């Protein structure tokens, strides 16, 4: 019973991690940029959900319909104004730029919203479905997981069936060749960054009802998103999805059977093992960067 309970809560938490990882992986795949502002974009989503709930009285899950287009535009604009300029530059310049953008965002949030953690309390924040065998499933976490699945499915269809989606994948596979085939790679980069931002903000909004909202809350998720990407294979959307769930389950199992104090150690040992034996990640292309 303890096993099933931890497995379940691991999978559900992992779903939200996965969403954060997918956004980061997509950006890396298309643009070959590691986005270190990803955690802060998640934080942005958390605050948007919080203010939609407290000021506009919109349910945080419903608010996604508002948050996604807003953050997509924000990401699109960020790419056009900043990221675009370093796309052919060395990695360290890109890293510095995204870290800088992240710092500006988190510190602006600190100034504007202070360091008091905000708590988003919905009517279902601490409710759960309880089965007769004693296993309970958190209502908000289950909702988040289902929404994650739906978004991932839509993203998958978008990438595999639409013209823009195929152009994105072509850019991801080979930027120069895609350009030669007449794909507007600059536009694809902006779209990819917009989607990445929207996914990060969505992950933030989804976790907001079960977590607390703080200007620096994104930082712990940044590390997780990065681990997930490398584990699943940088640039692989499916890999990031699976990687997220794996991390969620491993964390949950480690805290049940070892100690919650040690769960990060177990996660990073797994991470190191993947890097040693399968450096391209679980779903990565061989010989990729």
């Amino acid at each position, binding site marked *: *019973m*303890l096993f099933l*309970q*931890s497995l379940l*809560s*691991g999978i559900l*938490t992992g779903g*939200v991690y996965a969403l954060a990882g997918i956004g980061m992986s997509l950006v890396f795949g298309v643009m070959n940029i590691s986005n270190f502002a990803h955690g802060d974009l998640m934080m942005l989503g958390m605050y948007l959900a919080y203010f939609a709930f407290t000021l506009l009285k919109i349910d945080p899950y419903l608010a996604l319909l508002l948050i996604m287009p807003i953050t997509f535009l924000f990401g699109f604009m960020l790419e056009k104004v900043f990221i675009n300029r370093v796309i052919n530059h060395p990695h360290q310049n890109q890293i510095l730029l995204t870290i800088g953008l992240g710092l500006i965002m988190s510190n602006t949030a600190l100034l504007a919203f202070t*360091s*008091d*953690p905000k*708590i988003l*309390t919905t009517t279902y*924040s*601490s*409710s*759960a479905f*309880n089965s007769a065998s*004693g296993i*309970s499933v*958190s209502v908000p976490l289950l909702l988040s997981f289902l929404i994650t699945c739906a978004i991932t499915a839509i993203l998958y269809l978008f990438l595999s069936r639409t013209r823009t989606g195929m152009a994105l994948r072509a850019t991801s596979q080979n930027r120069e060749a895609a350009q030669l085939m007449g794909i507007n790679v600059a536009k694809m980069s902006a779209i990819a960054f917009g989607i990445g931002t929207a996914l990060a903000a969505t992950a933030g909004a989804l*976790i907001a009802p*079960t*977590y*607390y909202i*703080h200007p620096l*809350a994104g930082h*712990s998720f940044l590390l997780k998103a990065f681990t997930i990407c490398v584990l699943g294979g940088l640039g692989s959307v499916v890999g990031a999805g699976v990687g997220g769930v794996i991390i*969620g389950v491993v*964390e*949950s*199992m480690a*805290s*049940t059977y070892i*100690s*919650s*104090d040690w*769960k*990060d150690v177990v996660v990073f040992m797994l991470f190191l093992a993947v890097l040693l034996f399968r450096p391209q990640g679980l779903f990565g292309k061989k010989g990729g960067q």
Partner: protein
Amino acid sequence: MKRKFLSIVAAIVMAFPLLAQAAPVKIGFINSITGKEAQIGENLTNGAAMAIEDLKAKGIQVELVKEDDGGDPKNALAAYEKLVTRDGVIGVVGPYTSGCANVVASRADQYNVPLLVPAAAKEEITMKGYKNVFRLNAPANVYSMVLMDAVKTFKPKTIAYVYAATDFGVSTVKTAQENALKMGLKEVANEKYQQGQPDYRPSLSKVKAANPDLVFLVSYDADAILLMRQAKEIGLTPKAFLGAGAGYTTAQFAQQTEISNLVVSATQWTDDVNWTGAADFAIRYKAKYAKEPSYHAACAYEAMRIMVETAVKSGTAAKLQVALKAGSWSGIMGPVKFANYGGFTNQNNHPMLVQQIQNGKYETVYPVQFSKKKLVYPFKR
């Protein structure tokens, strides 16, 4: 001639501040104004500011030099050294966190400038025999002792610990285990967690499986709400939730009535305790800052009042040390005296209070002589 004249003028100009120095006495205040502990730090800032205002109203002038440690012991030590060497303060109030206070305390005897710690709980701070370190609040071991004393009459048999892997968490649980041993409580689960995680369900499920009578919790602000939410979710219902200070004593926590009702916590101070001026302090604080004063605010207020009143009479750091050691006070924190007992030096034997959230409000329930309401036991949802 001209040069001689100039030097006389310069000498006079330089002499004047010395003459004027007879006026206000200089006191330092180290606090976490920024950084992770800034939220609680703000309460200390407000409490200390109110003390200075009240003293001004009584005609006592003081020059307060404020320093921010950002919650970092390194900065706290630098702040203390700056205060005593450059600003020439004769006494220092602060720092807030245990980590910072412990480091600063270790240097106080070197500079011979008294340090009055208002709210840091780590026992070690006043256990090393430093003659210039004084502490107003009760140390960490009292948190668990008073909580267990409060439920003793109900004869619980088992206990589980859930706590943050921080200095405060680990040291509080260590003393709780000693107290539990004395009471004959059996430990059935021990879950140390890293702060800021989204999922505590696995740890809490383990605790639930062990079915303890008491669950002893140590967490900072937001984690407390997260833990109690997830505890409700998985249906963890012991006979009592005992929260040791910090996250379980905030107004934000009490407002979450669905999860916080009937949670018991230990605190240094409440606004319904019958100590002189406590209720009045709470009313004035609420009017001024539009929020409930936490115990940190009361501790900072009283520490600042005692420090300034004593410093004004003493005038030098050495005399201040003697006066703090010899004096006794009574105010919003009850009777205060810095004594040596049970391994502690210059420690105020502060009686801690046990409060329980009843209908969204903190009610003092123990010790009986300070409380109006009764403890509700066992816990129910």
